Every structure is written in C-alpha cells, then in structure tokens.
C-alpha cells in the first residue's frame, strides 16, 4: 500500500505545524501585520 505522510504520526503532527505557520502568515498579512 502506498505510504503517505499521514501514515506516520510524526508526519501528521509536522504537517499540522507547517499548516499552522502558513495559515498564521496568511491571517497576519490579511490583518495588515
């Protein structure tokens, strides 16, 4: 079976952290920060 990053707990957590940083920057930019 093909492996995805979500097959690993660490891959899941790290992708969540990366998504948090990306969304934080988008909202920060939208708020004029």
């Amino acid at each position: 079976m093909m492996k995805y990053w979500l097959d690993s707990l660490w891959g899941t957590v790290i992708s969540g952290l990366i998504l948090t940083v990306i969304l934080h920057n988008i909202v920060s930019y939208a708020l004029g920060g």
Partner: protein
Amino acid sequence: MDWVPAISRWIHLLAGVMWIGLLYYFNFVNVAAAKAAAADGTAAGISKHVMPRALFWFRWAAVVTWLAGAALLGRHFLDAFFFLNKAYYPIGIGAWLGTIMLINVWGLIWPNQKKILGMVPASDEEKNKGRRVAFLASRTNTMLSIPMLYFMAAGAHTALYFG
C-alpha cells in the same frame, strides 16, 4: 453575566475536549494498539467493546462542539464564516477547520467505521477500503486539529497572536 456566550463557551470547551481527546486517543493510542492486538489475536475486544462506545461519544461530541461554537459566535457567525469583519478572521479560520473536521467525522469516519465494525453489511474488500479511508480521514483531522486549536486560542486573544 451574558449567559448565552458564557454557557456556550463552557459547553464548546467541554465537548471539544471530549471530541479532540477521543480523536487523539484513536490516533496516538488505538491505531498502534489495534495493530498489536490483531497480531496476537486479541483485537475482537477492542472492536466489540471499545470502538462503538468511543465512536458514539466522539461523533456526538463533534456535533455539540460545533453547535456550541455556532451559538458562541451568535450574530457574528457570518462575520466569521465569510470573513466579513477583520476581527473575526482568526476565529473564522478556526471555525472552518472545525467544520471540515465535523464533515470528516460524519461523512467519512463514521460511515466507514460502521462497515469495519460490522454494524452495516460490507464485503471484505469494502471493509479494507473503508479502513483506509477512515484512517486517512482521522489522520487528516489530527493534522487539522493543530491549526484549528491555534486559531481557537487566537480568536479569543487576537492581540496576543496577531498584535
């Protein structure tokens, strides 16, 4: 005291702890436990006695969390969901992430878990496919929970996070 937002926030937190707590139990504990139990032939107890109960509280806690969150937003619901007001941008992102997670619970995880646990008829092939879909949806929700909780915190403390 303004009762509606006060009680809504409290219920949102209570149900949210139950929802995300069970999500983390599934992902951080049960996936590995079920694999080990399948290897030594003891998985039946988990499937029969643990999962149906855990999934009951999990899926209904998700609904209560979302409804209490909607009540908490109150007349600012549309401001948050459609980004009509800058002050609601952070909670809007959190609300959308939580909504996607709720849809994953009821649209992907629960229907496939019913097949896996034998609550509805399914062939072995359907069960295997359902197992994979439910697993990836659950992992996706674990991933989304990280920014979701960040934006829930940021929604209540915008100056701290975006000041």
